[in-house]
């Protein structure tokens, strides 16, 4: 088991390393002088040189890479180029908000997607099935930010049921917290529900043809029991992977959603950093997201063996 854990962690290393190295390379190969861009239009050549040496851009590419690597390994991302705050603190602060939004959106997706998937899968070719399948195709084609704009317009501006933007910490007021995050969570989660729907429907259709289902039926069990005890259970295990991947893509989607609802999360931090070319902050955000991904994947694999006793490591 411990052995397995180490092997998995090793295999997941590229997930952290590749985006980071890619970013490093792109940053250095990018046309134009980043130091000049950061220093601003009115900067003198001394100021630009100062920024350049502060970024370590005056060393050779290999030297830069080694220094950079040494810092990343020590988890030292330096401080923001604009506020002089430590990147680790900035990322931790904003990540907390994003994680809350992601969990809420995941709850929306998990509550809606699989339930409808099972309902549709057990009534294949029925009216409900066809309507839901078409709906899920639209859901996949719908950009989450458009859904967000529409939801804001109808529920926020016209009916005034939900606030259109902002964020209240949970510790300050749990009710206002949910009230503010409801629209972002719905606009993110509803579309992921479409993906979960597709997978769970396919899982049900798949397990309906398994031999153990035929056996259960031939034993004379009522169809409801067959579905609940056999079809459902077999369909649920592969869903764990999908839910894990969904949590990941929700974090990605949150980046866009946060900017619409002005939620002070990781997305907003990243976006501001990108617009200002605040390289240390960009690196910190990417690193954090990659690490969360790796851990998430690891947890999913371990959950697998808990849910399905046939899988042992």
């Amino acid at each position, binding site marked *: 088991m411990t052995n397995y854990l180490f092997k998995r962690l090793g295999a997941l290393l*590229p997930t952290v390393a590749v985006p980071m190295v890619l*970013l490093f390379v792109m940053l250095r190969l990018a046309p134009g002088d980043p130091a000049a861009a950061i220093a601003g239009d009115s900067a003198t050549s001394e100021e630009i040189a100062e920024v350049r040496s502060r970024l370590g851009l005056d060393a050779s590419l290999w030297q830069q890479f080694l220094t950079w690597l040494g810092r990343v390994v020590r988890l030292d991302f330096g401080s923001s180029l604009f506020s002089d705050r430590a990147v680790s603190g900035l990322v931790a602060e904003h990540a907390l908000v994003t994680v809350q939004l992601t969990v809420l959106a995941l709850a929306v997706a998990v509550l809606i997607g699989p339930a409808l998937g099972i309902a549709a899968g057990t009534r294949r070719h029925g009216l409900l099935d066809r309507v839901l399948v078409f709906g899920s195709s639209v859901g996949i*084609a719908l*950009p989450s930010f458009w859904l967000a704009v529409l939801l804001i317009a109808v529920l926020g501006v016209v009916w005034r049921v939900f606030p259109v933007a902002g964020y209240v910490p949970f510790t300050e007021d749990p009710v206002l917290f949910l009230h503010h995050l409801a629209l972002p969570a719905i606009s993110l989660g509803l579309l992921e529900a479409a993906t979960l729907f597709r997978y769970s429907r*396919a899982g049900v259709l798949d397990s309906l043809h398994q031999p153990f289902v035929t056996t259960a039926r031939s034993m004379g069990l009522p169809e409801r029991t067959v579905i609940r005890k056999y079809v459902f259970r077999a369909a649920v295990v592969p869903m764990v992977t999908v839910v894990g991947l969904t949590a990941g893509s929700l974090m990605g989607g949150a980046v866009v959603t946060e*900017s619409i609802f002005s939620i002070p999360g990781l997305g907003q931090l990243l976006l501001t950093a990108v617009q200002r070319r605040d390289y240390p902050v*960009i690196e910190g955000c990417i690193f954090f997201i990659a690490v969360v*991904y790796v851990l998430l994947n690891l947890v999913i694999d371990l959950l697998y063996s808990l849910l399905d006793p046939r899988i042992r490591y």
Partner: protein
Amino acid sequence: MLRQRFSELVRDRTAMAGAALLGLMVLLAVLAPVLGGDPYRVDPTSTLRPPSASHWFGTDEKGRDLWTMVVHGARTSLAIGAVTTALAVLTGYVLGVLCGYFRWVDAVVMRVVDGLMSFPSIVLVISLVGVLGDGVATMVTGLTVVLIPMVTRVVRGAALAVKAMPMVESTTSLGSRTSWVLLRYVAPEALSVTIVQAALAFSVTVLSVAALSFLGIGLPPDVPSWGTSLSAAQQYFYSAWWIGVFPGLAIVLTVLGLVLLGDGLRDVFDPRSARK
């Protein structure tokens, strides 16, 4: 064989609905200069006008005709989508075939692919395009980098399957050169899964371009694009619902067309994974 699959595809009603939607959008994009007016013409005297006979979709916050913006937006989206998809699919296809055949290439390339695949692509694109600076070229570069792994992985799987087939073993034992085996057997067999991936890659590109320009990253603000139009809608939705509706509909119809077509292509070209 290809002809048979094509006729199978034509009989698939969902796939044809998708193709029709996509065809419609392509037509709008190609005929944009004829169908719409000048997308750069700003008219401060007629901002935020509701849909009417002279402005079918109304006008936006700068007084530009929204119908013009939507058809020219189609041009932007589909052009970037086509170029990106072509680059990503071509690179991914070559890499995938090589990975499936040569173990040492596989060892190196697949580690990179794994690293990029499991990362949320939109975050990576935002960072890359943000770092590289605005412009169509950087947008295409950023999106291509993100899409290549997706294609590579699927093509590699197909190539590995072909490599294990008896026909490859027999032709190798008869003394065929590696390049011959690759060109004659592995490459053509891996083509069908590549076609399916192309539709998927295209839809991802259209959605990403919309998301990026919505956030104001990548495209210069005066280039007509659906995402840019929608970001204005955030401010003006209450007084001008049309800005929020028509560009969004254009995105959904395009991507829906690609998703439906992609499903149909998978049923025909890659029936094994379609049944799953």
